[in-house]
């Protein structure tokens, strides 16, 4: 139940606030609309007056029954579910429309003034009781307003997660650049996840195309640390176990220096500065193999 006063007073309080909300709904709505339209956060470019009225009314509609329960502090309780649903839909659509999270939360906060006006006018003469009412409503509205920013955060995070997934897919293309020669141009930071995906994709492609040479180009990789280097070396080793060879190309001067300082052992791996050099080397290698075969026939 209510946390700030005893049950009997709470009962009176809830009845009075919820009642006011119900009996004075139209006046409160008018008052609120007037306030919102004249406020500096009103984004007439993003939302029309009619839409705003509908949204505001819907909020009032679900808020009254929730308040009637007497619970003014726990917005996760069952009675507030409809309110949270309305706010969630509202926050998401506002976010999509281009409103900032503050603008969206302000919608909820701006409700305080019309509500308090109505409470004051409701004729309740007991000042301390009035103050209790106002305070309880204030805390509640704060929580509801903050809830909209939480929803906003969550939907941003969903977008980021989705984009990360897409980027992961986009970022490991294995291309066959010549008969028997594959190229894997890596772009961006290499972390464990990406590297295992890359490793599997490359090795799978080696089997599918029966390519004996793969060039891993790291021109697009900004930094190489010991972890990244280990991943690369593992990929090379795995490919070799399968019967294919890997070259690493696109090693920038800075990275070459870093690798030596980190004492990364590349003695087992053929490395070239550019993809072009690597391709030339690969062609020579496979050319030699072809030459060898022709000679035998």
């Amino acid at each position, binding site marked *: 139940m209510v946390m700030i006063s005893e049950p009997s007073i709470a009962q009176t309080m809830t009845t009075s606030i919820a009642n006011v909300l119900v009996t004075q709904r139209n006046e409160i709505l008018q008052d609120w609309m007037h306030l919102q339209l004249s406020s500096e956060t009103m984004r007439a470019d993003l939302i029309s007056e009619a839409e705003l009225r509908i949204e505001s009314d819907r909020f009032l509609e679900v808020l009254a029954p929730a308040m009637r329960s007497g619970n003014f502090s726990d917005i996760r309780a069952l009675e507030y579910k409809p309110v949270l649903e309305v706010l969630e839909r509202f926050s998401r659509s506002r976010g999509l429309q281009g409103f900032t999270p503050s603008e969206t939360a302000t919608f909820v906060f701006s409700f305080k003034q019309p509500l308090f006006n109505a409470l004051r006018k409701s004729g309740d003469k007991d000042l301390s009781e009035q103050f209790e009412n106002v305070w309880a409503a204030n805390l509640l509205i704060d929580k509801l307003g903050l809830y909209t920013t939480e929803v906003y955060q969550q939907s941003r995070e969903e977008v980021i997660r989705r984009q990360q997934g897409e980027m992961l897919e986009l970022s490991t293309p294995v291309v066959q650049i010549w008969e028997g020669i594959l190229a894997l141009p890596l772009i961006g930071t290499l972390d464990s996840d990406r590297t295992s995906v890359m*490793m*599997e994709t490359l*090795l*799978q492609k*080696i*089997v599918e195309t*029966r390519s*004996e040479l793969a060039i891993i180009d790291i021109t697009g990789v900004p930094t190489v640390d010991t972890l990244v280097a280990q991943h690369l070396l*593992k990929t090379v*080793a*795995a*490919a*070799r*176990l*399968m*019967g*294919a060879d890997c070259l690493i190309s696109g090693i920038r001067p800075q990275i070459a220096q870093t690798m030596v300082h980190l004492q990364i052992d590349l003695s087992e791996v053929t490395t070239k500065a550019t993809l072009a050099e690597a391709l030339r080397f690969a062609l020579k290698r496979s050319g*030699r193999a072809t*030459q*060898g*075969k022709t*000679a*035998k026939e």
Partner: protein
Amino acid sequence: MDRIPILRMGDLLLVTIQVDMHDQLASALQDDLTSKITEVSAKGILIDISSLDIVDSFIGRMLANTSAMARILGAEAVVVGMQPAVAITLVELGLNLSGVHTALDVEKGVEMLHDRIGTPELGDTDVRF
């Protein structure tokens, strides 16, 4: 106890490993292979592991040992058809099977063996790179 069949292709021997190897099967295979190499004077052996989707250090060692045995008897060994997941596992286990030659499949394995040992049918007088 089943034994793994050994097929002969010219002067090459082909072995396909399709089942889980256990101690007895592995040593039976090594027995059979070494005998056969000597018996037909094989110059190369191909060990096809394309059906294996999991491999442990035991198999890793078995492959390395078998290659070494063959070499002592004058035959080159090539392991072919390693699956990507298996290769990754072996690398993670730190087994790099140095000294074991590998090829993507049987066809390339045969090519590699012929490169190394020469193709007997054509004789040895071709100009080779």
